[in-house]
């Protein structure tokens, strides 16, 4: 560790220029602070091709420089605080579409491509990548894969692990490796691609990702069913028991519309989408309306553009949140847990937003970080509650001062056996511990 910082930045910079050219290497002090809170600047290098990326990594490995991969830098608040970093490998210039055959519904893009640009391209062919995470418009595909994000659509479309079918990875030793294939079905060899989803760049750096796509829904409706947590949970149960095909089953606290602070008045809303076409949507909407009237919940329906606008507003509202906590629990426990967390947030005077994809057993708490002490206490309290229920909580985004006190990965079910295997995997793919050391679960 010490060694790498006895090397002057100038030497690192000169060496990296041999890999990526002099225009694409620079010393960066602001980024350094954001990556690991370090005072020492990092040297940012912008490889223009996968083999340049591999050469950078080989050089870094040989010299013992610690490396952090950085896409748009919008997801840096995820993960424990890494050891000081010498080199930031930026994927910005790797932003091309490598292969897109709309008729095969498979796309391969370089990892630095902006997710928003990818979705726009796909939409022009009536297709989409089926994820809808809360993220910056600048976020890159590689960054989203490395952070394993998801959104309300996961209850129908699944998560990145259901969509990422192949990758190209630069390993720390400079090996450039393909995993998976560019066809939707493939079982040749180990499914290594999966290891990189949510790995925070600790195993290798993605240079390309290949995804399975979905058709863009031709028609959309979204029913908003409002009531108390008990009413909303009763509706959740009915929907899960039915044959309905929700494209979202998102529990939201209506204070997200702006009525913050007063927990006693917290109203909850279940946002149930339908992407199944006009006739099916009409049927689903009627069924939901009936369910709502039986339990005495309020009912609103949005159609087509209104649905798109609803989720756009949702993402825009939540995107600036400084704290994102992911909670995982059985669907039957999730709504009441959300209620508990809302009460804890109110007690800690933290303005929190709650968004729980009920049938997937996953939820997120978003909060603005104004009072760090209150946030620290809230996280402790939420984790205490999660431990009691044997549920999982993961900090997906938090400022450095929060992550200094809390381990981001906190899963009651992650046993020593699993951790030991994870450590061996890290050791196998990054034996010199070059890639963002200490950032990951279990000190990896």
């Amino acid at each position, binding site marked *: 560790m010490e060694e790498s910082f006895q090397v002057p930045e100038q030497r690192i910079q000169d060496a990296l220029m041999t890999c990526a050219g002099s225009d694409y290497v620079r010393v960066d002090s602001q980024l350094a602070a954001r990556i690991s809170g370090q005072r020492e600047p990092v040297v940012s290098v912008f490889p223009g091709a996968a083999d340049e990326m591999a050469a950078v990594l080989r050089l870094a490995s040989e010299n013992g420089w610690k490396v952090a991969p950085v896409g748009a830098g919008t997801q840096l608040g995820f993960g424990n605080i890494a050891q000081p970093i010498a080199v930031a490998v930026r994927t910005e210039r790797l932003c091309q579409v490598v292969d897109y055959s709309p*008729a*095969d519904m*498979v796309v391969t893009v370089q990892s630095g491509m902006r997710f928003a640009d990818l979705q726009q391209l796909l939409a022009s062919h009536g297709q989409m990548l089926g994820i809808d995470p809360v993220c910056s418009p600048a976020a890159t595909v590689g960054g989203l894969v490395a952070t394993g994000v998801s959104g309300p659509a996961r209850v129908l479309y699944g*998560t990145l*692990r259901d969509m990422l079918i192949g990758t190209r*990875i630069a390993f720390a030793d400079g*090996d*450039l490796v*393909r*995993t998976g*294939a*560019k*066809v*939707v*079905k*493939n*079982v*040749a*060899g*180990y*499914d290594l691609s999966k*290891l990189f*989803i*949510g*790995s925070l760049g600790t*195993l290798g750096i993605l240079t390309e990702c290949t995804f399975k796509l*979905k*058709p863009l*829904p*031709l028609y959309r409706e979204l029913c908003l069913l409002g009531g108390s947590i008990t009413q909303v949970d009763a509706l959740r*149960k009915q929907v*899960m028991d*039915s*044959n*309905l095909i929700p494209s979202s089953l998102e529990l939201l606290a209506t204070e997200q519309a702006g009525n913050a602070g007063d927990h006693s008045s917290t109203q909850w809303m279940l946002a149930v989408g339908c992407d*199944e076409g006009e*006739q*099916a949507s009409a049927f*689903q909407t009627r069924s939901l309306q009936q369910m709502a009237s039986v339990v005495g919940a309020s009912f609103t329906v949005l159609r087509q553009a209104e649905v798109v606008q609803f989720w756009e507003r949702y993402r825009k509202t939540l995107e600036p949140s400084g704290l994102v906590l992911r909670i*995982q629990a*059985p*669907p039957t426990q999730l709504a009441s847990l959300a209620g508990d967390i809302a009460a804890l947030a109110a007690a800690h005077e933290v303005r929190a937003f709650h968004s729980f994809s009920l049938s*997937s*057993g996953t939820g997120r708490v978003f909060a603005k970080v104004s009072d760090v002490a209150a946030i620290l206490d809230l996280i402790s309290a939420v984790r205490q509650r999660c431990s009691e229920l044997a549920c*999982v909580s993961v900090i997906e985004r938090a400022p450095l001062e929060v992550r200094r006190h809390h381990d981001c*990965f906190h*899963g009651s*079910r*992650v046993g020593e*056996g*699993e*951790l030991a*295997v*994870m450590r061996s*995997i890290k050791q*196998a*793919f990054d034996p010199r511990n070059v890639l963002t050391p200490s950032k*990951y*679960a279990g000190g*990896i």
Partner: protein
Amino acid sequence: MLAERIIAALREIVSAQNVLSEANQVKAYDCDAYVAEKSLPGAVVFPESTDQVARVVKLCNQESIPFLPRGAGTGLSGGATPRNNDLVISLARMDKLLAVDFDNQRAVVQPGFVNLVLTKTIAERGFYYAPDPSSQSVCTIGGNLAENAGGSHCLKYGVTTNHVVAAKVVLPSGEIADFGHPFGDPVGYDVLGVIVGSEGTLGIATEITVKILKRPEAVKTVLAYFDHVDDASRTVSDIISSGIIPAAVEMMDQLMMQAVDKSHYHVGYPLDIEAALLVEVDGLSAGVEDTARRVMEICEQNHVRRVQIAKDDAERALWWSSRKMAFPAIGRISPDYLVQDGVIPRTKLTEVLRRIAELSREHGLRVANVFHAGDGNLHPLICYDARIPGQREQAMKLGERILEQCVDAGGSITGEHGVGLEKIGQMAYMFSATDLKAQRRLREVFNPRDLCNSGKLIPHPARCAEFRDARKSAAQHMNPTGRNIFREEAHESC
């Protein structure tokens, strides 16, 4: 055979009646449903608990005995075939359904639990287990996990990896670890994601948590006859590009239809059509009728000769039986056959089928085609007669050529049957030496002594080069006897 001392130790762990060690007893375990290569196991044990599996594996480690797990033995690539006098650990007696949680839509099963039994058990409450390999009435969920099994409906619902959410695994060291989470995302690396599909080389799953789904409210099944394969292929592309995701799209060619019509499941396909397409759509009743009608319109736009919707469940069941019994039905027209499992981009269907027909002529062997057209997963069935010297080798060679065509078209050597023994030679065709090195690194994490299902899935490094050299010389100097020496050697060394 294993030493008597070892057999005694095994009996100690699993009790005497759960150990088979006589040659005549273990004969049935000399291969799986890939029958081209066989060899006797050292012994067979039938553990009844995770703890017993762990103790057996620990014993194997102490004594340096190669071992491998086995489910129902329906695998099609030799993944459960003992090539090293291995101890076969049969999970057949770990066949319990441990828990069903309808409210949270999860079930926990032991590895020997049969795929279709799960669906049957939960059907009353309107649930089912989605992955549906053709062998689902006998194959086990543990085997499905090992092979990442697919099936006809994975076009819409995904393969095994999309449905297994957690597992208790006995690692090749004998340690027990839990992977995955019943709800939500992995916390840490998605280790479960690499264990699924690892063909029993990374450990033995002993408790498996899977998603169970609500049955769709309505299903419509469409059967279409085409004069030309090209029209059928285009229909598949057109359906998908119209924004419909059918639950399944299956295609059979002429030879295949003739074979299944000779079986118990006689549909009465016209003799002169080139292709039959089976398309299933499901969802809410309110929309399905309309979707089925759109599918039929697309068939008509592509010169379909005849297209119909199954009039009742009996007709739908007949059509599906006809499709699912395609492999065994080949026995009606050929004494022996070899199944392949290549995947291609859907858009290359016509081109690759034409190439397969050419290769079939070049090799002088008939090839029947049945495939999951929706996801480009081909199952060419190569007909041969093992009694004719050299034909089996010729069939294997043809199979290899077909897989290479799939890779050349941008696809894969296996979509759902696995690499096993059968396709280990083609791994180096699909992946570079560097790609395979990464795969081996993972294997060594779990299986450093290479005792657990050794010689399957990932070729050894030195042997990759042998494969390549042998392929080249085989291509340059076709053996005059037609016997593929390269293939034989390859299997012995890997």
